[in-house]
């Protein structure tokens, strides 16, 4: 960038800066910074190594400068997780809004691209198997591979899992590993406790890496369970990357269609809290077992 080395240019910059500072549109520090830059003969190279953290203002803080009715804006902001009441800088978003948007987008990407950690699986005492997808990239590009188990996984399940149970719980990374780590520690014990109290025979829950919803059909065909439930990470959005869904099906077979699955979605701290969801899912599973049906067939029986 060309730097102001012309005297006239410097004078102009100086008077503009002083005028802005006088009107309160520029802080003293800001003015000094720009002036220092204007007086230099070589460009400043920004330091990209900086470790400085950006702190966002609280999400519920209204960013509109001169609201006509601040109460109304606050109430509307409280009614939606959408980005409203964020104000604007001319026709563009404010720096903080833009940074927050980028940060939330990064969180969503992390949720998809990161794996559920080994440490987490050990802590939760979950056996781990893998779908037919061999890598994250393949999993994302080939949905069909995420819907069935690898040959090795099928063998592991056949060898190690208890057969002929009433309920089998799967934990599936799906499109958000973050959702798994955020919800399972509170949801799983609540669900296990509820099923145990109801005297329902449950197989040991295990984890399926690179899995999609349909992988539950493949698992069910191996272990002969009445109900199979997948707790799976939802595709993250900019609102939350922690949302989990529970897909349940009664005795899936080759004729199974999507309408045969019962789903409870939006399990996260801003939706239904994980522990409460565990207790609620217990009820849903009891209904499925009693009706010997799930999905639309279950609803039609009600």
């Amino acid at each position, binding site marked *: 960038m060309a730097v102001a080395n012309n005297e006239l240019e410097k004078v102009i910059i100086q008077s503009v800066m002083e005028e802005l500072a006088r009107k309160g549109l520029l802080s003293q520090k800001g003015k000094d910074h720009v002036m220092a830059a204007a007086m230099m003969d070589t460009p400043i190279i920004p330091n990209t190594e900086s470790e400085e953290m950006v702190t966002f203002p609280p999400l519920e803080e209204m960013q509109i400068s001169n609201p006509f009715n601040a109460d109304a804006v606050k109430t509307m902001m409280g009614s939606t997780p959408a980005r409203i009441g964020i104000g604007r800088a001319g026709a563009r978003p404010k720096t903080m809004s833009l940074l927050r948007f980028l940060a939330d987008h990064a969180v969503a990407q992390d949720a998809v691209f990161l794996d559920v950690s080994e440490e987490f699986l050990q802590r939760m005492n979950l056996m781990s198997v893998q779908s037919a997808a061999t890598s994250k990239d393949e999993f994302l590009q080939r949905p069909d591979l995420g819907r069935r188990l690898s040959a090795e996984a099928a063998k592991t399940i056949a060898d190690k899992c208890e057969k002929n149970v009433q309920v089998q719980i799967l934990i599936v990374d799906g499109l958000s590993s973050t959702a798994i780590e955020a919800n399972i520690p*509170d949801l799983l014990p*609540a669900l296990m406790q509820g099923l145990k*109290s109801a005297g329902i025979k449950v197989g040991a829950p295990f984890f399926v890496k690179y899995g999609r919803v349909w992988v539950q059909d493949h698992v069910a065909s191996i272990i002969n369970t009445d109900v199979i439930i997948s707790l799976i990470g939802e595709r993250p959005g900019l609102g939350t990357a922690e949302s989990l869904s529970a897909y349940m099906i009664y005795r899936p077979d080759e004729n199974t269609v999507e309408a045969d699955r019962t789903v409870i979605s939006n399990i996260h701290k801003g939706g*239904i809290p*994980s522990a*409460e969801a565990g207790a*609620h899912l217990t009820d849903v599973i009891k209904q499925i077992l009693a009706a010997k049906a799930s999905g639309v067939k279950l609803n039609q029986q009600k």
Partner: protein
Amino acid sequence: MPESTTQRITSVGIDIGTTTTQLVISQLTIENTASGALVPRVEITDKEVIHRSQIYFTPLIDRDLINAVAVSKIVETEYQAAGLTPEMIDTGAVIITGETAKKENAKAIIDALAGFAGDFVVATAGANLEAIFAGKGSGASLYSAQRHQVVVNIDVGGGTSNYAIFHEGKAVDSSCINVGGHLIEFERQGDRVTYISEPAKIALQSTGQRLRVGERVTLSQFRPIVKAMAACVVGVLKSSIHSGLTKELLMTPPLQLDHQIRKVMISGGVADYVYASNEPTTMAEVTVFGDFGPLLGWELKVSLEAAGFVLEKPNETVRATVIGTGTQSVNLSGSTIHLQETTLPLRNVMVISPFTSVIPDTPQRIAEVVKNEVLRFQVDHTEGVVAIAMKGPRTMSFADINILAQGILLGLEDYLCKDKPLILVIEADCGKVLGQCINASANRPLEVVCIDQLEVENCDYIDIGKPLMGGRVVPVVLKTLVFNR
């Protein structure tokens, strides 16, 4: 479990005030508004008033005692007019307000109405609750939510004026002052005084006026007294520190005034005269109902406008309280709750909130707090059924919910020995899992009712009705029984 997506319930509201007694019957529609893939969210989606009674003068035995038998006759007549029998009424409330909110009256009316008011009708009273019901019935609550503006509703009746301030639909402040249009009585359309109540005597004294029963009075002689009363009503809106007449007439702590008020709505019997276009010009016009309501209404309007307040018209005036009582007294619990249906309905359950701040972190420490609070309650009161209320567990983690469940069980060991049901009311959305944890931790089957997403205060009384929507929710009525305070 059969479950329909909507259910209708019939609710009755009965308002027995200083001057008038009214009744409305409404139909509430309860609906699961969540889509299929979400956890159910059951809400009251529609409130329709299907019958409005005549406005009766409250039948009295003497100046303080209500004729409860005559009240039950009114209820009977109005049920017939609406084509309903008591069995068809699901819920509702009787509210005894103003000067008549006295212990003896409350008991007599509850006894007299026992057979008439359906299975789940409760008696409520108390100036603050009345104020809130009036503001909900008048439309002030809705106005504040729709326009996003703070509004105060003042229900000006025969004996009292009840204030409720609404912010985004919620009542945030309330108060009551002993000013009403019926505090001095006259010969109808005449100028001869037939009765002067105690608060009116105080007002007379402070304005230096002399007025005795049997005397005649001119409009210009009488106006200063009414002006003074109106000034008191407006004074409560302007400051939270009071002296003189206002201080003497206040029946509850004054308004806190944490929110700035500009908009005012007036409901109650006097309201129609606040919004009238002409002022009463003769004593005959003032005393058209044997009191001075028309003049109080006019002077209130003058006073409010002079003080810079903006008057907004309510949807309901004289019927605001009864409509509020009939349509707003029922709350629904959260939609994932834990309960044994056979335990319900439960009436007059006293609420104990054992935890003042943070919930302790071990079952033992939780138990200690619960035990002490329940013991304290049992010393003060008879051994009734109590509900333990709290905001929520320390965190929403399963571990903390489990610790809370164990602590509660441990703390209530003695209480539960007497085969009483375990009732928990919790604000956070974790009623179902908390109930499940309690059942899992208990060493024997217990009757547990654990309902969530309700706010209750220590020493409130609640009625919990039979479950609706296939066991998804229970109706809960919060009340303040005047004879228990």
